[in-house]
């Protein structure tokens, strides 16, 4: 590609082919008349793991069988966010969504929907553009605003043409041909975009620091080492819209005068990696990466560096050490990477989601972007919602949306009618938000104010059956495992905190343990080397802040109200309910249950390992925890 005009030609040619995916209700008629349809099948990691690849194959087979190749296009696409309902299939132009599709459903979709225009009722989830209806699907989408995820689910991530069709690389052309590097930074700065990796540092400011160095060698890095338990925002962008990242990084290179970049991806993301590599190859072939991009005179090279999946490598200086070939360990800052980063050269480093916002900011302008969100937190944020919630999946919301809206409107509430207890944001670095604070707006500063943090977007919902001491212990186990071992506060301190929690949850807590935890937490916060260590005590501190009574109960009464901590619970068979069927005894893995038809069954609590198998087996629900 030697000019921007060539880009426009590709855009128009491809758009004509795929514009039916953006069909409004007015244009539907027109498009439907020529009977064309696109079948989008989610091929993100979630749907792939529930067999979407086989579904794609089945669709292709059936299309060939019916000779529909001309009319029907099968497209594998990125994640729409409805992971709980996957595999998901969408049919355009009708915007019809099918959920939990099985291979055996394909024949019906083809023969009834595609051939006869009849929806397959048993798997129909709703129409995507049908905002007015009160379906689960419309509730899930209506409060979302997809900027970073704009193309996820809408294009084939392995097709650069489809990306270009929906204005891909148009922002790059705009930057290269109509904006000075300083103007690009100004625009990013004015947009109010803040780092989506968790720190919330103003992106434009970061860019201007990196730009201000006169060094001729600079680097642009993308942090795609997403490591929070349960978080997959960045993975979804890479899987669903990899060119958005590439385009953004080239723009960043142009803005700070860097000519080389690396995407640091964990090897645990095989699909993301494959699509990113395909995208890089396509961009290089199109002359959008490499020397003299679109004839602008600007050159930029981008390649992938693999990480082994260490949580700490998401810390920027550890990530840099890892790219340099060293062990992924953070180093103290200053100097900050913008001054001295990769190979001691000025380095700009942002995460995937941050970059994914850039093309739209450049293309539509900072004021468009800053019109979303709150005053200090502009734009949108992607969350990976998991735990005890109906619509487990990926959502992108305008900053300032309340936690309640996310959980109850978008997320569909708590399963089985249980009560909401708390939500954890910021993963192992963040904190919990109790029910009383459900109306907290999700933005950087509000979350900090209540002792949690935005983090990179992990959102774990906990219901009434959750023990908060156990949750704190879970996150500490994670950080103990993931600590790089460089500094004593993190290497030893978190372990010592975990040991106290282990004592408390096994009924050996002592008076003074809470104070010891708090003291250690303060030591670690103030003396650990990097953000991982400094924030590692947060889950303990925030659970202590909102659920201190649970700790006290564990310590003084040796009681776990949520009945989670195994050493503090006992399984008991209610004699009045027990019909002595013997199923429990049959399935008990340790032979702790004895009895016969005459006497009924009892559990030997010394032998019992509290696995809970018996409870599930008892047809009378006679086995409970006390």
């Amino acid at each position, binding site marked *: 590609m030697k000019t921007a005009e060539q880009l426009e030609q590709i855009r128009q040619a491809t758009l004509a082919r795929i514009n039916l995916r953006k069909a409004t209700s007015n244009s539907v008629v027109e498009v439907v008349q020529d009977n064309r349809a696109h079948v989008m099948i989610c091929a993100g990691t979630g749907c792939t793991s529930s067999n979407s690849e086989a579904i794609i194959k089945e669709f292709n087979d059936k299309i060939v069988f019916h000779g529909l190749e001309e009319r029907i296009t099968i497209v594998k696409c990125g994640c729409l966010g409805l992971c709980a309902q996957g595999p998901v299939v969408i049919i355009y132009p009708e915007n019809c969504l099918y959920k939990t599709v099985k291979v055996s459903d394909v024949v019906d979709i083809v023969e009834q929907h595609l051939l006869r225009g009849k929806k397959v009722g048993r798997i129909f989830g709703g129409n995507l553009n049908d905002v007015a209806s009160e379906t689960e699907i419309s509730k899930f989408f209506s409060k979302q605003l997809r900027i970073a995820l704009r193309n996820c689910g809408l294009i084939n991530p392995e097709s650069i043409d489809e990306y270009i069709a929906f204005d891909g690389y148009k922002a790059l052309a705009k930057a290269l041909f109509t904006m000075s590097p300083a103007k690009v930074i100004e625009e990013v700065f004015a947009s109010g975009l803040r780092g989506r990796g968790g720190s919330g540092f103003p992106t434009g400011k970061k860019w201007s620091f990196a730009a201000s160095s006169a060094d001729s060698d600079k680097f642009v890095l993308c942090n795609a080492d997403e490591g929070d338990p349960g978080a997959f925002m960045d993975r979804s962008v890479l899987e669903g819209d990899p060119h958005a990242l590439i385009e953004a990084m080239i723009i960043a290179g142009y803005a700070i005068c860097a000519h080389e970049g690396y995407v640091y991806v964990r090897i645990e993301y095989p699909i993301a990696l494959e699509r990113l590599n395909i995208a890089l190859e396509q961009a290089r072939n199109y002359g959008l990466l490499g020397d003299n991009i679109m004839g602008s005179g600007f050159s930029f090279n981008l390649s992938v560096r693999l990480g082994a999946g260490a949580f700490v490598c998401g810390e920027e200086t550890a990530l840099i050490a890892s790219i340099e070939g060293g062990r992924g360990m953070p180093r103290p800052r200053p100097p900050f990477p913008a001054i001295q980063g990769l190979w001691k050269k000025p380095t700009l480093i942002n995460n995937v989601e941050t970059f994914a916002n850039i093309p739209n900011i450049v293309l539509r302008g900072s004021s468009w972007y800053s019109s979303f969100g709150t005053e200090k937190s502009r734009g949108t944020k992607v969350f990976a919602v998991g735990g005890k919630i109906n619509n487990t999946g990926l959502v992108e919301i305008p900053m300032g949306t309340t936690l309640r809206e996310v959980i109850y409107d978008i997320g569909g509430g708590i399963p089985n009618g249980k009560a909401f207890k708390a939500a954890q944001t910021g993963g192992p670095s963040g904190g919990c938000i109790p029910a009383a604070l459900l109306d907290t707006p999700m933005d950087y500063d509000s979350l900090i104010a209540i002792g949690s943090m935005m983090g990179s977007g992990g959102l774990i919902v906990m219901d009434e059956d959750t023990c908060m001491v156990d949750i704190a212990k879970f996150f500490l186990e994670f950080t103990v495992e993931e600590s790089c071992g460089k500094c004593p506060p993190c290497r030893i301190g978190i372990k010592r905190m975990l040991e106290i929690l282990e004592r408390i949850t096994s009924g050996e807590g002592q008076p003074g343990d809470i104070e010891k935890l708090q003291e250690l937490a303060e*030591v670690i916060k103030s*003396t650990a080397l990097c953000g991982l260590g400094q924030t590692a005590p947060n889950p303990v501190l925030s659970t202590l802040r909102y659920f201190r009574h649970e700790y006290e109960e564990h310590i003084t009464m040796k009681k776990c109200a949520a009945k989670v901590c195994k050493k503090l619970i006992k399984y008991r068979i209610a004699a009045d309910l027990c019909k002595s069927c013997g199923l429990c005894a049959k399935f008990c893995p340790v032979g702790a249950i004895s009895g016969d038809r005459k006497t009924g069954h009892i559990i030997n609590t010394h032998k019992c390992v509290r696995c809970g198998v018996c409870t599930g087996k008892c047809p009378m629900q006679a086995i409970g925890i006390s």
Partner: protein
Amino acid sequence: MMNKVTIEIDGKKLSVPAHYSLLQAAGSAGIQIPTLCYLKGVNEIGACRMCIVEVRGVRGFQTACVYPVADGMVVQTNTDAVRTARKNVLQLILSTHCQDCLTCEKAGGCKLQDYCYEYDVDTSAYNGKNNEYIIDDSNPFYYRDNNKCIVCQRCVAVCSVLQCTAAIGLVDRGFNTFIGADNDKKISESKCVSCGNCVSNCPVGALTPKKKVKFREWEVKATRTICPYCGVGCELFLRVKGNTVVDVVPANGPANNGMLCVKGKFGYDFINHPDRLTQPLIRKNGVLETSSWSEALALIAEKIKGVKQINGADALAGLSSARVTNEENYLFQKLFRAVIGTNNVDHCARLCHASTVAGLATTLGSGAMTNSIEEVTGADVIFVTGSNTTETHPVIGAKIKQAQNRGAKLIVAEPRKIELAETADVFLQIRPGTNVALFNGMMNIILTENLQNARFIAERTENFAELEEIVKNYPPERVAEICGIDTAKLREAAIMYASANNAAIYYAMGVTQHSTGTQGVMAISNLALLCGQLGKECSGVNPLRGQNNVQGACDMGALPGDFPGYQKVVNPEVVAKFEQAWGTKLSSAPGLTVTEMLNAASSGKIKFMYIMGENPMVSDPDTTHVAQSLKALDFLVVQDIFLTETAALADVVLPAAVYAEKDGTFTNTERRVQKIRPAVLPPGAAKTDYRILLELMNVLDYPATYADASEIMDEIALLTPIYAGINYHRLEQKGLQWPCPDKQHKGTKVLHIDGFSRGKGLFVPAEYIPSRELPDAEYPLLLTTGRNLYHYHTRSMTGRVDGLNALSPASYIEINPVTAERIGVSDGELVRVQSRRGQIETTVRITDIIEQDIVFMPFHFAIGSANVLTNSAVDPTAKIPEYKVCAVRIKKK
């Protein structure tokens, strides 16, 4: 002008360089900040969190070791908050630390112990679980006890940044992080070269030497002195308990910057070894029997007088020593020249760098390393040839690797794929003995590519036309054929060298020990002159001298043609000067070299030999001939520290003191004269060599009245222009590099800056001549010899260190797998190796670092000695023997 900033630390206003860290700034004001992991320039990682301070306006604590100063910064290093935080960190560290302080070898020298005391940290804070590690005792010299490790990473940094071996690193992560060899191997199975620099830098008891003598930190006193092994001249501290050297730690000397190698660090057991000679011995009825000093000296004096009277002074000859001090070498040659009256004095420099002394004196005017060790790390291109630097000069080898890590390019031309070759940018695996062709070929390419430094050639050299004429005959294809290398690689090397800003050549015996050694040296000189790589920093022609004081022994005139300072015996003015100073008539006929002396002994011309601190029975070529020559003598005196193979043949054996027992100076390979200091007393009746020599001079009625070694140096300075500015007072700090012409002169780091010692640099080109003895049908293999890391010279010292013997126990021969298969020998097999001069038995070591039909043996071992096989053919100019090439065959036993 250095950029400075003003900052305030603990209320003190300071002006410090802008590149300083807070720790450096505080240190410059005498404000101590505690550190555990910090090692200046090596490990500045902010890991241990002990150096935390408060910086006004910055949230939280900052680590002073890495925090850069900035103008107007206000810092508090010792607030209550800081002290409490440090105490908390110490409590955490201590909670994982094995607290066997009562029995810990490090007690008293442990930084963790000191800080716990200072910060009132006791053991009660946490009762958590700890990892339990098995102590790794697989290295013969040290223990790694990870139960005491605080994961400060100093050892890791020392191993990777300083020593550049990178044998150890962090293993596992989080609470389970520990330090170990790659893949959690034992140290003995890793790349570890036992340099012990990690042990020297461990702040706690995790790395401790395996002590022969137990000692407490407070029981020992340390004496700063110079290592007695190779020519690098590393400064070290001997730690002494009673009269026993019990430990060695590196000093931050100018040559070694806090590093040592395995021999320097751990090879000290010979000092207090029971085998030491403690009494003079006289051969009576064929047996060496204990005698008194007076009897021994009287007998020697009587023999000297007798031989001189009957056969003339030139029937006596002496071998001085590259092992003893300058002062002792000076006295030895004075004994022979002034008291006995002959110039028959030489020493083993004849066998290592005689060709350098001859060659560089001809082309440049001075036969020594042109540049300094500290410049190694600054070069852009380093060309190593004929030197297995990481084994023979390990600290310089490490610095070459440091230079590589800083981006320098490395060219290696060697017959074996040595350690440096593995990471070299260009490796030329040349056939032994083809150096002259190689250098001519490089120059041919440089001239063809027009990469020579025309201005330098025009202004600072002469005889360029002849060079062009000869080099013309060495097109790359021909040279590649001769050397057995690839033409493209040869071209790459030549262009890389010629295109560099600063290119430095380091070479050693692979160049000098040939019958064309002098031409080889001069060819190197030609190459450097051609590219103008002389007379400036980080470049030059740098012969690496093999022994602690081989440079000094040459400087002191332990050479048959030279008075001290290379003042020529054949120059009547020089002779007159020394006659006046020494008050006696002197011979103006150059004496015999080592090789000539032995021939003269065997033919009966030399009747008496005095050998001080040398062991020709192992070190000289063609051992059979050496033995026969020494046995032919009427009288042989050997002065040494052990009853060496040579001393065993002597009529009188004199017990001498080792370096650790005496005062004096050594001159290292970079011409640096450095002070050595006594740490212990000599055993029994052993005396320092200078004491023995001056007593003998007195017995011979020549008045020698030096009160101590410093007075000898004063006399040296008086008579030796290049040493004129040197006295002991001036040497106290970090020595002086000659030439040092007057008492105000600061010494000379780089030679030939303003002009060459001889005026202009002289091109002396030479044709390639093949080695004297090449493989043929009868002796089909080419044997080349050298050293290995773990032994020194003839093992009289290292052979008495158990750990070194454990690492390298016996003689071996390296054979390429293909050759081995052809001969039908397998790894570890005992074979017979034969040359035209003798045969030995040795063990096969199969390795692909050596090419087919070429075999390598270290010369250290008296049993299975390589020098039984080597050829005593010599270079006609320098009389250096051709150790590096001879023909052998291997027979199965």
